[in-house]
């Protein structure tokens, strides 16, 4: 008698599956433009110098240990993490309206947000609106909790630009008090962000319908090299008092601190000015959620980030490291664009590769082209055409450009 008669094998998670196929590929010139982790100019993973220095400082300190953190997490980390995203002069911090809970990186923060909203926001009856397209895991995170998921227009594939009209229309027509998930910067997978003027319009319309905002911030500092610039939308909503409803921020240090596998993140709730829900109550409910899932969050990564943020020299080093990463990626964008546009004269307009920000480029390549890139050229992209620009370097950018050119011409009937 079988205990689990109904269990069927599932296909692997698309992103992890891509990685597995890449690893199994024996071709020596293979290129990984799949998973979103930074690579240096030699295609190697890069532990940030600020991190390495912080680790040494941390491990050799007298009070280093592996004790349990409190359920909320490492307090010195949480305080600094809030300041990083909100700004040291944030109204919300000054007015003591911020509750923070350490989370298992960005995914963990989004999940906690979902659990919290399911219980405390209209009994989980409000839909969550996700951009079309959005990060592959967003839908599952919320659907898994029994929340209803909708999409809002975002990427216009023909013009390779923001469908602002569609976006605003969706905001206006969504039932009042709906939940909208916004990418704070470096939109994943498109790399296309609203301009500051567009952000103002978006935020204004969200407030007019009393919608609740979740900001997903996974690339602060990594996008432009400038922490303040990459937090514009978040800080504007709060410091200009534009948004009166609670704001949820899901913050990850996976990319900007290279903390990937250490799982360092936080969820912050900005409590509205007239709210009678106390910070203590919100914190206690976060704790209750965390306690029955993991008891308390992992210590090591949060201590590294805390060491960096609490040490002026390390913080300065970190800011340099952010510029190193973001500028190398930007350089590769320009290289690829130049090769396609000026050298190879590949059919189509490739401006978007230059203008998009962050780790990814939504190349516009079709899934057939992507499949051909993998089978013929040993170049791995997500089937949506999302390429991790971090995977490009001086040694492979020409090969990649030539391969893009080949598959585009091969499927010449596709419009680009």
């Amino acid at each position, binding site marked *: *008698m*079988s*205990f*689990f008669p109904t*269990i069927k*094998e*599932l*296909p*692997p*998670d698309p992103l*992890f599956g891509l990685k597995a196929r890449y690893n199994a590929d024996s071709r020596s010139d293979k290129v990984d433009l799949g998973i979103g*982790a930074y690579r240096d100019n030699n295609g190697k*993973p*890069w*532990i940030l110098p600020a*991190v390495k220095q912080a*680790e*040494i400082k941390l491990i050799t300190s007298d009070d280093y*240990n*592996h*004790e*349990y953190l409190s*359920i909320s997490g490492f307090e010195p980390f949480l305080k600094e993490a809030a300041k990083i995203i909100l700004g040291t002069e944030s109204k919300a911090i000054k007015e003591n309206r911020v509750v923070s809970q350490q989370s298992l*990186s960005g*995914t*963990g923060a989004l*999940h906690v947000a979902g659990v919290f909203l399911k219980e*405390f*926001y209209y009994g989980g009856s409000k839909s969550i609106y996700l951009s079309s397209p959005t990060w592959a*895991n967003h839908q599952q*995170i919320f659907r*898994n909790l029994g929340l209803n998921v909708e999409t809002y227009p975002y990427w216009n594939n023909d013009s390779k630009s923001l469908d602002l009209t569609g976006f605003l229309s969706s905001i206006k027509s969504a039932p009042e*008090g709906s939940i909208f998930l916004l990418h704070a910067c470096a939109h994943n997978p498109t790399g296309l962000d609203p301009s500051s003027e567009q952000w103002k319009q978006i935020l204004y319309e969200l407030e007019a319908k009393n919608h609740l905002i979740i900001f997903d911030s996974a690339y602060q500092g990594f996008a432009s090299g400038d922490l303040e610039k990459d937090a514009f939308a978040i800080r504007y909503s709060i410091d200009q008092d534009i948004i*009166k*409803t*609670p704001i949820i921020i899901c913050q990850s240090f996976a990319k900007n601190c290279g*903390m*990937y*596998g*250490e*799982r360092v993140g936080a969820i912050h709730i900005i409590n*509205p000015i*007239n*709210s009678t*829900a*106390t910070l*203590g109550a919100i914190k*206690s*409910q976060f704790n*209750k959620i965390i*306690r*029955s*899932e*993991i*008891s*308390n*969050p*992992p*210590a*090591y990564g949060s201590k590294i980030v805390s060491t960096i943020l609490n040490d002026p020299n390390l913080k300065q080093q970190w800011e340099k490291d952010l510029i190193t990463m973001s500028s190398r990626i930007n350089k590769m964008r320009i290289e690829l664009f130049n090769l396609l546009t000026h050298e190879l004269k590949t059919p189509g307009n490739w401006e978007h590769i230059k203008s998009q920000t962050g780790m990814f480029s939504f190349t516009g390549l079709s899934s057939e082209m992507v499949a051909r890139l993998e089978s013929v050229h040993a170049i791995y992209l997500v089937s949506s055409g999302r390429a991790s620009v971090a995977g490009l370097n001086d040694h492979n950018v020409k090969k990649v450009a030539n391969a893009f050119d080949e598959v585009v011409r091969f499927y010449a009937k596709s419009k680009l």
Partner: protein
Amino acid sequence: MTSSTSRSSTLLFKRQFSQLNNRLNKWNDIPLAPPDKILGISEAYVKDSNSNKINLGVGAYRDNDGKPIIFPSVKQAERILLELEVEKEYTGITGNKNYQSVVKNFVFNNSDKDINGKQLIESGRIVTAQTISGTGSLRVIADFLNRFYTSKKILVPKPTWANHVAVFKDAGLDPEYYNYYDTTQNDLEFDSLKSSLLSQPDGSIVLLHACCHNPTGMDLSSAQQDEVLDLIQQKNFYPLIDMAYQGFASGDPYEDIAFIRKLNKAVVDGQIPSYALCQSFAKNMGLYGERTGSISIITESAEKSVAIESQLKKLIRPIYSSPPIHGSKIVETIFNEKYNLLSSWLGDLNAVVGRLNTVRGELYKNLDKSNYNWDHLLKQRGMFVFTGLTSEQVIKLRTDYSVYATEDGRFSISGINDKNVQYLADAINKVIKK
């Protein structure tokens, strides 16, 4: 301003404010959740200014000076990592193959002492996933059982770890107690255990502690384990084993898993089709806050393993994507033959457990046995003594003597050392006196 104008502007203000309030109405109904029973103790302890205060709350090891330690073997492993680590990439959703293999061999092969476990490993019938320590393991398997198993009923021993019920409830299961320990007798009530299990529906999930039962420290004897296994087979229960204290019974982690060996034999002999094991390195490697553990599911076939593993990944991915790597890298380093750290670790663990057992003996020695029968302290095993004190007595210990423990009378021996054992024994003797 005329009075009518001021009245209408007041009304306007009131309407706007109530609109704002209505908008936020749902948000304002967030109640304050009660503090965690165990972790709340430590918080209260920290605030106490009495220099004689003793923290007997959390099961985290303290040395004889009351300080937390890093196991020397762990320190070594971390130095190696610091030197050699070149990346902090994401590990797999269920961890990496090496970690999974290390855990499988450690627990199921049992350093070649478990022929049945070895067979299960070799026939691909064990799915092992890295988890967020023991709690994460319990929650993952609970979510998994909720999704795929035929019964939501999970039987837990009375008493059990304070967090078990919340974990299972929040995963959608329906926890219910079976009799385990008689607090009036300070002993197991085995007949009552059997009858309470027999009275439950066939096919229920049954939670068992592998060793060092938390909070009582009273484990089933070998003969009792055999009887329970028979009962499991008879009732077609699904066994879920929680192993957070491997090594704390005898000082030897390979010794303490006799029950796992029995389960493996029962599976290989075809008596039970499957079971699941929640395992943690929090205590036995002192990795606590690094959240390093695993869930293993014994499956019916290699094909079933593939299916189950894929479903575990689907479950975990939208919750936290992948587990944290630092603790698991330490584990992998210690079990890596290249670094020759395994026997050091076993020695470190043995020393820790040795101190706890010594302190247990010291406490027993200093307690006034004319007043109360303390024999159960010597029968119990692990990090705790389950004193049998009433909650009133525990509270009195806290208010009058600054001794902090959970109200069920569970004392973490870690908090005891040769400087405070006398004070503690005196305090206990006093609150027990009628």
